[in-house]
């Protein structure tokens, strides 16, 4: 009797998990399989008479020889390398400021939530305007200090800087929220003890805050990296990849190949490359969580 009850509990468990399984199979597993298969075929909707022949690694070889792909990959890596530490630094700063003993907590909390809730593409639109050559307030500021206005969005290097600033602003608030929760979980007694021992603020930060915050920093960094790999909305809204394709990211190039050039085979190969890059990052994260779970 007891055995049958346990069996039915297990059956019920699988039944309750079934909707998740079906959704993941339809939206993730099946498309992943389709993606990998497509990447080995030529699928051009503009030339339907070609059919969909198997071409082996031809699409990957094409990517290897495609300068625009390397440019997009390089830009994506550049955005990751600059904005991940950048938003960590700004986020940590904001979290430290927000952790001070305010009488009213809600304005500060709302100020951290607002950029998080703002759609990425809207942040791109708004900052595009901040950086507008003639009507933007950044150049207004610059010229008030007696400098010449800068062509922020039409110069390849300045455009990258403007995009990085926007990404850092937008993503630092999520960083700050995660780090703030980490800060608040550090016991006050540690600081009191350090105070008694005569440790200064900087020493307290280095010896207590940073080590205790490490797990939260790590989680925030991984999530930031994963989203940075997929950077699309902000450059799309700010420059559309221009001038030329100097600010284009991998995600934008994939989108262009599929939706504008209707070259699904090549687009799939590019997406597969992005997929592999993400898996490498994700597996590193999973290994870390499993190790820390084993410690407990």
């Amino acid at each position, binding site marked *: 009797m007891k055995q049958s009850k346990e069996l039915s*509990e*297990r059956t*019920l*468990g*699988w039944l*309750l*998990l079934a*909707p*998740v399984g079906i*959704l*993941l199979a*339809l*939206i*993730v597993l*099946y*498309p992943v399989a*389709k*993606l990998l298969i*497509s990447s080995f075929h030529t699928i051009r909707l503009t030339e339907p008479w070609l059919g969909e022949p198997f071409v082996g690694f031809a699409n990957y070889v094409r990517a290897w020889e495609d300068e625009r792909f390397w440019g997009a990959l390089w830009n994506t890596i550049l955005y990751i390398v600059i904005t991940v530490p950048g938003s960590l630094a700004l986020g940590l700063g904001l979290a430290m*400021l*927000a952790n*001070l003993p305010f009488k009213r907590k*809600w304005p*500060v909390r*709302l*100020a*951290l*939530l*607002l*950029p*998080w*809730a*703002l*759609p990425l593409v*809207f942040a791109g*639109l708004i900052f595009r305007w*901040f950086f507008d050559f*003639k*009507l933007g307030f950044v150049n*207004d500021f610059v*010229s008030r200090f007696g400098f010449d206005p800068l062509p922020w969005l039409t110069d390849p290097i300045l455009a990258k800087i403007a995009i990085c600033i926007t990404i850092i602003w937008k993503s630092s608030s999520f960083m700050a929220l*995660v780090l*703030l*929760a*980490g800060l608040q*979980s550090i016991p006050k007694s540690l600081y009191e003890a350090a105070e008694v021992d005569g440790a200064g603020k900087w020493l307290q930060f280095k010896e207590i805050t940073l080590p205790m915050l490490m*797990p939260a920093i790590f*989680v925030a960094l*991984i999530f930031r990296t994963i989203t940075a790999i*997929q950077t*699309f*909305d902000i450059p799309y809204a700010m420059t559309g990849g221009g001038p030329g394709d100097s600010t284009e990211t991998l995600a934008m190039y*994939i989108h262009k190949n*599929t939706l504008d050039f209707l070259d699904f085979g090549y687009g*799939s190969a590019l*997406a597969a490359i992005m*997929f592999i890059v*993400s898996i490498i990052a*994700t597996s590193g994260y999973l290994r870390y*969580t499993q190790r820390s779970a084993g410690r407990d």
Partner: protein
Amino acid sequence: MNLATMKTKSMVMLAGLIVVVNGFFPAIWILFTSLKTESELLQFPITYIPRDPTMVNYYQAFTEKPLHLFILNSVIVAGASTIITVFVAALAAYALTRLKLPKRNLIMSCLLAVSMFPLISLIVPLFQVMRELGLLNNYLSLILPYTVLSLPVCTLVMASFFQDISPDLEAAAMVDGCTRVQALFKIVMPLAAPGVFTAAILAFVNAWDEFLLALTFLSRESMRTLSVGITLYQGEFAFPWPLISAALIVAIVPVCILIAIFQERVVGGLTAGGVKG
């Protein structure tokens, strides 16, 4: 009050001011711009506070483009995907916290892996799948992926809330003749209402904000969601900033109100998904 405490107090005030300005200035800028007239906007040097506030941009934002349809589309897509996400995630969270399942940790790890999955790399095959199913320019082509997008974090958030509810209550209910599933919906879900709510807000904001899939799957103008509709406001030559600002304010305000009311829960949910993982 002595000088030292006054100094610390003003330092704390200054710190708060920095955080608040950093968070609010783009929204304030957009609000001011939405109240400017076209001629004031094109003035040089630029003005900061509108000299001659006008509401005409809000009127035009609705007449130039079908902004009301964009709002409706966003509400339908975000609302439906939120309801489905919460329902599906609640079932999964219950199974993972209450029932003795083999490989429970493996399932949790898989969910976490999915939460970090780059959905963007799937636009190509998803586009093909939606085309095959005839779902392009259909709300379902967004509702289903958005559900998957929020499913992992919502499951984790609800699981952490379910864990805090005593199993005795369910046991009592089941002695009274409730089934397991009835116990979930009549006992556990109401008691875990804050968690359910948190999950719902996270799912709603995720769906409300998404851009790339909406841009790709709903190409017809009348089907566009707010994020896509407003981004594509730009005309052939000029960028109608006052109109866009007004439309942005219309799009941002509902979400702002939502997170302002439930800010503590949103923060709790965000960090539960992040820090516990």
